[in-house]
């Protein structure tokens, strides 16, 4: 392939990113106003599309796992998985959920408890039950179904069919050679766009949380300078991790981090109100499974539509815009697994860990809020990033817990940013499995510098809204991905495996 053609996605996406960053840096109010208008229009008019699509993705994932296609391997027939189960689950969790879960583990149940939809009384037992159920829902099987559609398609078309690991490659059954033309470029550029802005906002918001965590235990005042230092440190760390390669850097950090997370989780469970936590876990799990179908398709047009728009639809759009990055990363670590193993692994293990996490942290927060009047909900209402640290203040060794959580945040950040630079490098170098270091450095620096600039100018939320706006075309792309994948696996079973069987019996 000619060099210019190979770099067309890089050049185009880098230019668009620079333009939007410049707008965010020099005209933050304008970016804020434009993106708010665009975001509001999309959520208002197309919100139902997200809800329906996420449900369809879940149904599709289950169908792929439990139909005859489930036995197809994401790789050659006799290939073995590259990573052990523990390493695989750790990386899945780190890339897909880790950082958000720490941010929202306490904050989300408390926010729903304090501000439920209009038809539920605020700060009531019903609000608490609703808060836990919807926290499970927003972080449950649906986000993973979204990721699965993306990663399964990429894994199938790249590892099974030998195509470059790009989202555009998955469209071969539909577009043929046109994937190497403008349509293919558009798909890949959109993926880069969503990934860059997703990781920038994630890095910016995460830096704020690390900052407030450190400020609560160390004698300094959280400000822009300290946030800048945090971003710089995180950048150096993830660049080092990125240069060591996927196998060593991310794997090591992810497994270490999941072990650290489980340690904190166990501590909170054993020291905290264990019985309440177990009650919350079982009750919410029952509520969640019983009302999964209803929640999946409820836009609540006659009551609480605004709440659904602000939370559920926002989340779905966010998961979709986040999916190119997570999808590509998850695909790259899942080579050698069967479709059934892949889907059940992705749907069950991280989800169950998420449920336990919410039950431990949310349940503990509710226990303190209801039994001791701890005002955690009020703290969350003031500043979402401080909810977890407020909870720690009621526990022994709270400084150690805060420090460990900050460490956890930093490492999750490093793994997310590391995998993001790897994925961006891959997407902008024609799907090379080992993207050039120069591209990884360019993307890494772009992401960090942008996060710093936008934190300074206040354009971060605007950029997040732009990432969510990109989710709309991506929803369409993902629905088409389902069709392409279905065509691919059907073709394989209909034309290739029949031939193999005939060859085997000597016909």
């Amino acid at each position, binding site marked *: 392939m000619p060099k210019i053609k190979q770099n067309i996605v890089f050049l185009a996406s880098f230019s668009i990113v620079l333009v939007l960053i410049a707008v965010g840096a020099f005209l933050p109010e304008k970016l804020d106003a434009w993106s708010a208008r665009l975001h509001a229009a999309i959520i208002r008019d197309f919100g139902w599309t997200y809800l329906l699509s996420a449900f369809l993705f879940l149904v599709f994932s289950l169908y792929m796992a439990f139909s005859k296609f489930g036995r197809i391997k994401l790789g050659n027939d006799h290939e073995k998985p590259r990573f052990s189960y523990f390493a695989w689950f750790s990386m899945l969790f780190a890339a897909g959920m880790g950082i958000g879960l720490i941010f929202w583990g306490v904050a989300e149940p408390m926010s729903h408890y304090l501000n439920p939809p209009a038809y539920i009384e605020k700060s009531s037992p019903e609000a608490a039950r609703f808060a836990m159920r919807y926290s499970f829902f927003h972080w449950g099987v649906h986000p993973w179904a979204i990721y699965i559609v993306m990663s399964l398609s990429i894994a199938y078309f790249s590892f099974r*069919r030998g*195509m470059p690991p790009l989202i555009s490659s998955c469209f*071969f059954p*539909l577009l*043929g050679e046109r994937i190497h033309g403008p349509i293919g470029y558009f798909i890949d550029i959109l993926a880069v766009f969503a990934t860059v802005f997703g990781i920038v906002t994630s890095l910016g918001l995460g830096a704020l949380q690390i900052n407030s965590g450190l400020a609560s235990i160390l004698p300094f005042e959280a400000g822009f300078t300290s946030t800048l230092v945090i971003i710089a440190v995180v950048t150096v760390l993830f660049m080092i991790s990125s240069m060591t390669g996927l196998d060593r850097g991310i794997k090591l950090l992810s497994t270490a981090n999941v072990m650290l997370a489980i340690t904190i989780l166990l501590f909170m469970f054993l020291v905290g109100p264990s019985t309440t936590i177990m009650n919350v876990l079982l009750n919410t799990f029952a509520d969640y499974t019983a009302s999964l179908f209803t929640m999946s398709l409820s836009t609540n047009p006659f009551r609480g539509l605004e709440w659904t728009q602000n939370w559920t639809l926002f989340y779905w759009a966010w998961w979709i815009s986040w999916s190119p990055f997570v999808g590509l990363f998850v695909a790259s670590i899942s080579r050698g697994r069967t479709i059934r193993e892949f889907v059940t692994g992705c749907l069950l293990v991280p989800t169950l860990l998420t449920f336990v996490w919410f039950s431990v942290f949310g349940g503990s927060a509710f226990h303190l809020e209801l039994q001791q009047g701890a005002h955690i909900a009020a703290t969350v209402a003031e500043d979402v990033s401080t909810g977890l640290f407020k909870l720690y203040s009621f526990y022994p060794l709270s400084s150690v817990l805060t420090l460990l959580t900050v460490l956890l945040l930093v490492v999750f950040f490093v793994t997310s940013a590391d995998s993001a630079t790897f994925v961006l490098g891959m997407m902008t170098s024609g799907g090379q499995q080992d993207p050039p270091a120069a591209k990884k450095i360019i993307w890494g620096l772009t992401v960090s510098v942008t996060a710093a600039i936008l934190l300074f100018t206040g354009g971060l939320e605007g950029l997040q809204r732009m990432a969510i706006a990109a989710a709309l075309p991506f929803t369409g792309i993902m629905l088409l991905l389902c069709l392409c994948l279905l065509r691919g696996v059907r*073709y394989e079973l209909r034309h290739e495996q029949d031939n193999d069987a005939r060859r085997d019996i000597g016909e």
Partner: protein
Amino acid sequence: MLQRAAVKVSLTEPKKKFLDMLAFMRNFGTNEVHLVHVRTKTNYREREKAETALEELGTEINQLGMAVDFSIRNGYAPGVMTEVAGTVQADYLALYWKPKALLRHALLGSIDSDILRMSNMPVFMYNPKLFRPVVELESVLYATDFQFTDAVVMPYLKSSRFKARTLYLLHVGERAPDPDTEARRRERALTNLERLAEECAHAYDQVEVIETLGLVRNEIVRQAKAKKVDLIVAGKSDKPNTMSRLVGSTAEVLPHRAHCSVFIIPNVCGLPRHEDTPDQAKGEADHA
């Protein structure tokens, strides 16, 4: 092979165009027709009137050099048609295709569609053109999927009684999931088409192969229109998939969409009688 036809006649068809259909059928080597007129209820007077009309029609058909017989039956047309065709040992069923408006078709259904769906013998649907009478068979398009239908349809196409100048062999494929497999699939499809073309070469002045991608029913219609063919020949599977059961198989949809006549040969027809095999036909031709 296609000497004897059971022809559905409602007596509302324009006579000229109906006779054009019978003239067209001579291209298949048809020389015997059994007209079947089916009514839901018939009184004595109506029956007499129908008999007179059929006799008159028969006389005109005789002038085309065909032997004619007819029967008038009461009942549900699709069921009666298939039953009579079997009783008179017809080689195929012929229908004068009258397209129905979408709404009418959706509400009332179509007798011709039901015949096509129910029949286990070949069904020919004549599409009368509005301005140009179609009597000669210049070109035929056969849509093949290289599956079992080839074994059933090819003997008809290879028969020297089947008179057409040009044969188009069309394969509408499904794009493979990756470029390498796609290249191999294409190559295989073209090899198969060339093989079929070679088998039929003796019976036509020109045999052309077309390999394309897309939705089968759309592509058949598109290619038939592009090549201006007079007849589409297609096989019909006896094991339709779920989608076909819901929206109709390609064979069932073709007459509605095609701009020319359509010949559907069901899979269950099996191979033609021994004396009708191409070698036999070739022998007959040599003898003549």
